[in-house]
């Protein structure tokens, strides 16, 4: 498998010149889209007049700034949003579809896509704005496209863990000093324990990987029934000196505020937040236009500004080191297709060994 680092280097070479131009052009980018956008799409979207976005993203941080920028650029198209975790979002959309009355036009999230796609509710769309995205960042048939990347990796509390004790490899996690001192989320996702287990099995091979996991299970990792961010908070507060499967950008945001936390480049996994469109939705064109805007360099910069890692290879993260290429580290890409293929098997191992 090609790692993120190789892939990005290859792409970046071509993109850097374009990016420099964009920076020079400055405000021009606001009025002249940098990607070829079908004018008919804008017209049809205007006729629909609104779009409803079911979002798992954070309202204050990204949802409202994104909507404000979109509405300023396309006056007359109102964006309604309904914020909820992935599970509520998926349940709600599947119920709407079953009742033949879809209200949400599009959704996002790291997990939302899987159950909705299995139910056959997701519409295909290949955004122009993502045509330069690495092929791993989008579905070849247009079922999903990444809007952000999420690097799942361990972090330590720097007050509690001296530099010399910092784990350097997965094997170091087996050190007796970490017994009962580690935690991770119980999220059933590629960026949670199932993804971690998959990464171990793929990088070590099944036999060696299983032996490692069985020994790791003896360390009694605490399963925190909450999302990655809450687990990181418990790392910062000192409840657990070492946590696994947190997002590196969260650690960077907190460290910038003075929190004693450092993320480790220890077998990181690259996962995605993705956009998907609903079949039979009331505003399909406005939804497409909104996705195009989110994935354009202009939209991606709004993500970067909010602290997220943009999926677009042309837009760096605010803290450039967060991305594998700029941070000089390798991350295993765990695509939705790959995860979906193995999810049941890895989840079973998680349940059997770690719960």
């Amino acid at each position, binding site marked *: 498998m090609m790692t993120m680092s190789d892939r990005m280097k290859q792409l970046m070479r071509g993109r850097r010149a374009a990016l420099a131009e964009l920076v020079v052009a400055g405000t021009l980018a606001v009025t002249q889209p940098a990607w070829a956008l079908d004018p008919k799409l804008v017209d049809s979207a205007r006729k629909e007049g609104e779009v409803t976005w079911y979002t798992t993203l954070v309202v204050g941080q990204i949802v409202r700034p994104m909507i404000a920028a979109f509405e300023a650029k396309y006056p007359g198209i109102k964006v309604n949003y309904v914020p909820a975790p992935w599970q509520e979002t998926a349940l709600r959309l599947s119920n709407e579809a*079953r009742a033949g009355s879809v209200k949400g036009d599009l959704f996002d999230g790291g997990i939302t896509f899987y159950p909705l796609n299995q139910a056959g509710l997701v519409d295909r769309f290949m955004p122009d704005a993502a045509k330069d995205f690495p092929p791993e960042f989008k579905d070849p048939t247009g079922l999903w496209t990444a809007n952000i990347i999420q690097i799942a990796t361990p972090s330590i509390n720097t007050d509690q863990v001296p530099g010399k004790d910092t784990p350097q490899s997965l094997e170091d996690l087996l050190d007796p000093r970490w017994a009962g001192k580690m935690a991770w989320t119980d999220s059933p996702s590629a960026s949670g324990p199932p993804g971690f287990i998959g990464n171990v099995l793929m990088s070590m091979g099944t036999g060696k990987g299983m032996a490692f996991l069985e020994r790791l299970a003896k360390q009694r990792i*605490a*399963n925190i029934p909450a999302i990655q961010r809450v687990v990181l908070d418990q790392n910062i507060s000192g409840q657990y000196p070492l946590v696994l499967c947190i997002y590196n950008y969260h650690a960077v945001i907190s460290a910038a505020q003075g929190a004693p936390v450092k993320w480790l480049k220890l077998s990181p996994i690259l996962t995605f937040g993705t956009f998907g469109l609903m079949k039979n939705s009331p505003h399909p064109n406005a939804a497409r236009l909104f996705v195009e805007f989110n994935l354009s360099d202009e939209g991606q910069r709004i993500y970067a500004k909010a602290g997220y890692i943009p999926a677009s290879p042309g837009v760096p993260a605010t803290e450039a080191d967060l991305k594998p290429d700029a941070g000089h580290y390798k991350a295993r890409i765990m695509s939705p297709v790959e995860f979906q293929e193995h*999810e049941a098997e890895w989840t079973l191992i998680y349940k059997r060994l770690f719960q």
Partner: protein
Amino acid sequence: MPEVARLPLPMPQARRTWSRALRLPPGGIAGYVLAAIIALLVLPPLFVLVRTSLTEVTAGMGQGAFTLQNYVLLVTSRNLGTMVFNSVAFAACATIVSLLFGGLLAWLVERTDVPLKGLAYLTTIISLGTPYILYVSAWLFLFGRAGPFNDLYRMYVDPSVTLINVNSLGGMIAIEGFLWSPLVFLMLSSAFRAANAEMEEAARVAGASILETVWKVSLRLAMPAILALALFVFIRNLEAFEVPALVGMPGRVDVLTTEIYRSVKSMPPQLGYASAFSVVMLALVAVLLFFYGRLSKRAERFASITGKGYRPRPFRLGRARIPAACIIVFNFVVVLGLPLAAVVWMALMPFVRPMRWAALPFASLKNFTSVVSSPYYFGLGVNTLLVAAGTATAAMLLTVGGGWIAARRRAGGTLIDQLVTMPLVFPGLVLGVALLEIALQLPIPIYGTLWLIGLAFLIRYMPYGMRYTYTGVLQIHPELEQAAGVAGATTFETLRRIVGPLLWPAIASGWLFIFLIAAKEMSLPLLLAGPNSQTVAVAMFDLWSNGQGGEVSALGLLWAALMTIFASALYVILRRQSAATFGD
């Protein structure tokens, strides 16, 4: 009665006969009408619950084939014995903690001349107004490995030992117990408030000590109320998901609901297993209510509001006032002071950190100012207040009638009691999904509106309203109603002019409880809110999931402060109302 019809009666008497005929007979229609309304609310979600428990979940969250697998899983889960033991121990001990704490406090405040009564009410109101996730995470923070208690122990006693492990059965019991003691306090305080002091005074005159009097008279008098309440809290604890998940799961203390929590959170969500558990719980609740019903058949023996010169007087504690005041202070510290201090600490810090002097220079009001300066929260606050007040009012209207019919064992009473209690064991997510389905099929467009959230809240919180009114009615001796009946009052008049005023403390407490708990409820709005019907809880979850713990704490504190002002104002008004009936 043909003879009566033939008698040539003067007009006034004829009118009275009419009014008697209008007065609903013991097997009145009112009970069935009310039962029908409640059934309309409860049965559709119940249908969805049973159906969900009997169908497979397909990969695409659709409804699969009929299956009994969910029930089979219930009895074949690994470590079933341990889980059942843990569940029962957890539910029973937490119930005892709540009853001891809340009950003792209620008795002191309502029946004695203990000082600091206001503090007890304030503790209750603020702790009920504080959002759940804040409350539980405050406890986890306080007693966690990095919390101040373990910190102090390590600093001064043994640096290698973690004294308290909050992620244990004990931690779960304590947190769940404290969480529900305000409910017990509110419920029993309305019961004690309406209790007759004559018997207590008679016992004292006969030479009984305070403890003897409480044990042999006060407690016995309130026994039906206490038992009903204990049963209610026990059931609620048995089906509680949150504390077992948040507190128990990291420490690997599994109860029956832990596995259910996991199945609901898996991908795609497996609601069938959770529903099967709830169906079994429903059956259990029905059996328990049946036995409870037999017990309370003789409840009027315990009624203390009788037709005789009625005037409750506070019980003089004498020298015991000081230790009694200490109990109130202790309750304040444990139920409110400590968790609140932790929440304030989190709100003042830019990120969660241990409570140390060294961290103080980092304190700032930044989180508060960012909440106050965001106009976004204002609209959410209005939505939340509207839906919470509406829910509380509707629930109390329904359950005043329901509680009276059930407590008086009128026709339809048992049915009403069973129906109203059912939602208590509906898992929040299953109730939410049922309402999604129903709203999407209704011809009235309530999907995504505040009305739908209100409807969900009404179904969810009716059982609580019912416990307040039911307990309240048990205190009132039927002789008062019989007297009204003899004087020619219709059932409605009796309810309005006799039962209603005597029931005010219970109604007020119930309204307040539902209002406060609905205003902070998180799971249903997350599933049901539309673009224009979001509530404060949705915003809180949003901040929470972004790790803005400080801002959540600030928002939660400001929200709890607002709730406290609202609730206190309301309580003062209602107490004046009830003072007119009971004396102050």
